[in-house]
């Protein structure tokens, strides 16, 4: 550990977008987290967000985004339960794993799961099972005592908020690959080639000051008037008080509803990680460690399978 600071219990939330609620369309976003231990008992956290495509041909993207979150979390946990994360040195293998090994495993698992879903739930139009209708993006954060890393593909954003409030956009999708609303997707052929440019590993140095990481789907950023507004918003979201399960919706959920209502109308998801003093507000300590991943995908008026 670095000093007395450590990773605080994480949060994630997904909310149905204002436009989706009005039209009765399902939430195509999903988010998730898992707090677990590696083979040596070191505490780890994995956080994910996924955004299913909205076009008519991706009519099972709500399923695709949920499966993306599940597969990614389980793949990370499965790998680290076998291979201890180790110490603060020799990080290159993990960097390589985030850029290539994990993406390959997640893609393989996601394709397997969505094709299985397609077999169990055949399409009314008789089309054979395909990954295409399940298309979704995926952003992943992995937090260890010695470093943190990220990977994924698509139009998610990752922001770091320092203890003094400094905001930095760490990762965003470069100019859209097909124009307009186009993004890289799990359902694309050659999807495995688009993760490495969105992956990274950051060592946690001795004396590391507290900071917050916010991973979000594009509905958040597209609701903001400018990048400066987005970074300010990230700071606000990262500082919101913890979820009170006795009084849902949580402050975070209310904030996301407000953002979608006043902004893009899109589904919105965030996952929030915080490095700080463990005595800070006790956030859902009961979730750490947990035997199963937490997946959040709110129901809407329409059953999406």
């Amino acid at each position, binding site marked *: 550990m670095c000093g007395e600071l450590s990773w605080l219990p994480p949060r994630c939330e997904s909310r149905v977008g*204002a*436009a989706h609620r009005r039209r009765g369309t399902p939430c195509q976003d999903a988010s998730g987290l898992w707090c677990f231990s590696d083979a040596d008992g070191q505490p780890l956290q994995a956080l994910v967000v996924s*955004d299913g*495509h*909205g*076009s*008519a*041909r*991706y009519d099972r993207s709500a399923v695709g985004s949920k499966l993306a979150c599940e597969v990614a979390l389980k793949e990370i946990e499965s790998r680290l339960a076998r291979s201890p994360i180790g110490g603060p040195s020799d990080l290159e293998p993990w960097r390589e794993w985030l850029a290539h090994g994990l993406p390959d495993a997640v893609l393989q698992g996601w394709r397997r799961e969505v094709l299985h879903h397609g077999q169990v739930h055949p399409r009314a139009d008789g089309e054979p099972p395909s990954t295409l209708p399940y*298309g979704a*993006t995926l952003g992943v954060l992995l937090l260890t005592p010695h470093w943190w890393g990220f990977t994924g593909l698509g*139009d998610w954003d990752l922001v770091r908020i320092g203890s003094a409030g400094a905001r930095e956009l760490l990762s965003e999708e470069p*100019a*859209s*690959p*097909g*124009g*307009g*609303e*186009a*993004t*890289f*997707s799990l*359902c*694309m052929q050659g999807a495995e080639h688009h993760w490495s440019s969105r992956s990274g590993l950051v060592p946690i140095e001795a004396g590391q000051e507290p900071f917050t990481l916010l991973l979000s789907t*594009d509905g958040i*950023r*597209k*609701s*903001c*008037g*400018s*990048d400066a*507004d987005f970074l*300010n*918003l990230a700071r*606000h979201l990262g500082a919101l008080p913890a979820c009170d399960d006795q009084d849902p919706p949580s402050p975070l959920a209310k*904030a996301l509803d*407000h*953002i979608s209502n*006043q*902004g*893009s*109308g*899109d589904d919105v998801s965030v996952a929030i990680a915080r490095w700080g003093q463990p005595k800070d507000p006790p956030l859902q300590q009961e979730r750490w460690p947990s035997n199963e991943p937490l997946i959040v995908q709110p129901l809407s008026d329409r059953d999406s399978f």
Partner: protein
Amino acid sequence: MFPDVQLSRRPLHFIYLCDCSGSMRASSKMQALNQAIRQSLPEMVQVSQQNPEAQILVRVLSFADQAVWHLGTPTPVDQVLQQWRDLEAGGLTAMGEAMKQLAAVLRTPPMDQRALPPVLVLISDGAPTDDFLDGLRTLMAEPWAAKAVRLAIAIGHDADLEVLQQFIGTDIGRNAKRPLQANDSNTLARYIQWASTAVVGAASQPRSQPGGMATANVLLPDLPPTILDPKDVW
């Protein structure tokens, strides 16, 4: 809720590019175009109200001897009718210059990075009298122009369909495959109505999709039915 954050709807720029050359005076074409645009505005406002997440902003660029912004400020659709001044015909057809003027406003800035794909509607009854291809090249070098929904309406049989087709491009699905042919005022009004309501409605509801797929960012709605008018005045 967030004092230093401006949450905002995503702007959707709708831009008419109107041929105001002298030939538009003939057979009341200019009058028909003005009337069609004016009549379409109330329904366009309704579309805007049905899609509150999009902020529809209208502009009009006219071209004759020169290209001139007729309504140059991006104007909320519910304010356009109040500000509307009829277009007037007279002069040549500086369509190439219009492409360049359009290119200048489709850059970021002034375009918002989070804007929805713009809708560009080119309406002409003739052929360019300047270097159209040079203008088109300038326009299409702008990413927002490439992302835009580009439509073209040919007024009468003398319109240069090849030029209008070049403006539309040949991307499958992104835009109507061919220029719309309006040979009478009723058909022109139907096409203007379609572009300003059905297309704007579709563009207001963007659907994310994988890059590189040969599909449209904005799925164009069906065209209004073609009703042959025996008068076929243009």
